[in-house]
């Protein structure tokens, strides 16, 4: 008789695997057993597994104090026929009993993400992206400055920001520790900085659109959608690197989270019904070489402002009705 016993966690994750060959396999706390389970609720001679005349595996409880239970914590009969793959509880141990012919699933192809995650896990890559971010931020600050610009002061600012962002990977790595996922710290660093640079890249492109076609609903909404997509990407990556959930589950949780955040932001903006007394708008100006939009004629622009008066009038009516109630 050949039999395999896996010691598994409550969630059936394999902790150790033992293969036995012989008439019977004895299980207990005493050292003369085939499988020694060192736990105070296990009897010295607790149970044994043998093959009956029909060739089935049988688990036999040797009148132990705590008996043998199934995974739902129900005490089982003294002799029970085992189907390959069944899980039993002996003392506090979960064991799975398998025949050597138990089918195994097809091998999975190594997923690209895992491959990437492993390849990125180098200290020099992490350092490089952090440096690139630091330089990018410094240059960006320079090109945004129209007041006096002091290099050392600005460099310190960029450095502090870079170090600040490095806290994010620390948090993700800590989460990975908690969820017992192997920690790829440098990958997390690379991923975090790339995400932020992606966001910066899109805001640069966004500025170009804002300059040319700002005010249009298209620019406004696509800007918001892209921001939420980047947030989604970051959360997805963080969950992947910090937990053992499968890709499908991660995607579901991430989309859920992004939707929750987006609606919170939306209702927060909407819920505050107070009148804002100064105009709120964001107009962007870039060098005229980057002007691609076709200018509107004055008359066309004038008639396009009609809608602002209509919107304001509608709001006035809405607020007056609310005040009456």
């Amino acid at each position, binding site marked *: 008789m050949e039999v395999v016993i896996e010691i598994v966690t409550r969630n059936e994750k394999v902790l150790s695997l033992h293969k036995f060959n012989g008439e019977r396999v004895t299980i207990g706390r005493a050292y003369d057993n085939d499988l020694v389970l060192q736990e105070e609720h296990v009897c010295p001679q607790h149970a044994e597994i043998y093959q009956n005349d029909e060739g089935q595996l049988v688990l036999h409880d040797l009148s132990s104090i705590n008996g043998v239970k199934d995974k739902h914590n129900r005490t089982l009969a003294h002799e029970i026929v085992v189907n390959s793959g069944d899980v039993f509880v002996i003392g506090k141990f979960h064991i799975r009993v398998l025949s050597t012919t138990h089918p195994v699933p097809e091998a999975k192809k190594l997923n690209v993400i895992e491959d990437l995650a492993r390849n990125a896990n180098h200290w020099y890559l992490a350092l490089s992206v952090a440096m690139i971010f630091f330089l990018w931020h410094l240059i960006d600050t320079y090109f945004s400055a129209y007041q006096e610009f002091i290099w050392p002061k600005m460099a310190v600012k960029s450095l502090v920001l870079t170090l600040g962002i490095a806290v994010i990977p620390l948090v993700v790595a800590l989460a990975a520790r908690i969820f017992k996922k192997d920690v790829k710290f440098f990958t997390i660093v690379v991923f975090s900085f790339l995400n932020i640079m992606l966001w910066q890249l899109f805001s640069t492109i966004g500025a170009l659109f804002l300059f040319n076609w700002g005010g249009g609903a298209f620019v406004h909404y696509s800007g918001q959608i892209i921001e939420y997509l980047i947030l989604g990407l970051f959360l997805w990556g963080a969950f992947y690197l910090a937990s053992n959930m499968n890709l499908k589950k991660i995607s579901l949780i991430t989309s859920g989270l992004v939707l929750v955040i987006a609606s919170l932001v939306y209702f927060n903006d909407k819920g505050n019904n107070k009148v804002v007394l100064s105009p709120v708008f964001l107009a962007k100006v870039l060098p005229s070489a980057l002007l691609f939009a076709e200018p509107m004629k004055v*008359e066309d622009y004038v008639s396009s*402002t009609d809608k*602002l008066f209509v*919107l304001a009038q509608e*709001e006035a009516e809405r607020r007056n009705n609310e005040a009456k109630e």
Partner: protein
Amino acid sequence: MLQFSIASGVSRIWLCLAFFALSVGSKLANAAEANELFSSYNPALVQIKTVNIESGQKSSIGTGFFINIEGRIVTNYHVISNFIQSPELYRLEFLDNRNQTFPVKVLNIDVINDLAILEADKVSETYFSLAQQAPIKGKDIFALGNPHDLGMIVVPGTYNGIKINSFYDRIHFTGSINPGMSGGPTVDELGRVVGINVATAGNQIGFLVPVEKLHNLIAESANLITDSQSEQWFKTRITTQLTDNQASLYANIINTEWPLYTLGQAFIPNQVSDFMPCWGSSNKDKEKAKYTVASSNCGVDERIYLSGNMTTGVVQMSFSWVHSDELNQLQLGQLFSASLNSRYGHNNGSEDEVTDFHCDQAIIGNTFETISKGVTCVRAYRKYDGLYDVRYHSLLLEKDNQTLIGRYALQGVTRDTAQDFYKKYMENVKWK
């Protein structure tokens, strides 16, 4: 002193007479005289009180005066504005010279000229008659009032004609008008009302509403009776007055040729009207600035009082030419963006009376092929239908080391006025 002591009795009398003739400016003598002269009018002068019903305390006081025997009283609109805005919270009463209180009702108002006509169920034997024409410039006139519960006071001063460079007719009065005198009459030496006290600019400068505005309001009120005026009636009345007033104010501004003026390398309109004066400034004095800014600010800053929280009627227009040879193009872009987005315009509104601003932006080309980026923001008045506050921020494009930021803020205008103003503006702002 020496002269006095050696003068004989006869010459002393002569001296006194000579001094009297010369003492036109001696206000002390005049005040005493005037007090005597006008003490007979005392019963015609009352104190108007707006009383908060909840607390029973007065929320504002001002002066009023009878203009006929049937109990018709004139005062300022701003003295009774709380009652007009929220009649459910306030009641109006007046206190006569014998400290007796009587209720009073509002017959008609004129927010543009800050006037109100009230009616009381009390016969007043003494009342003021209204002058039919303006006095001569330089003539002595006397502002009467009932400030701070002190009883009637007389402030003598001089009629200096109608204030110049002002869209609204106001008498320039040299004499100090105190806040509680608001709504009181200013009379000539015969006791005829020539104006109604309305404001002070401090230091012996006061402003009066000319009596002809009161004549107009009286004529308009001929067919009115006090019981027919609801809260809504007053709102509609104010809306009509504001709408008509903005139409004539902006017709004045829009239907004239705007004188062009060079600011940096751009043409801008300058002092488009006498009542819209301009002021200039620049940042040349800042040593470390990497760019120069030269600005021109023009505006009509005469406000129409609507309530304690809200005034309207301000027109503001400003231009800044921003230029730098030191900054690179991207830095200039940042500077231009910051200037374009910076706040502009008086608020003058409150949360219960206006809406949020609704904004929109675009790239616009005018007929002179000057391309600009423009942002329009509009908010509506909640109580006065069809009136809006409109702001416009714009920036001329196509010259990389410089730009012209142009902004304006129009208060209490209709959509048509705002759009006409915009077209006029776009014709007059361009690169050289």
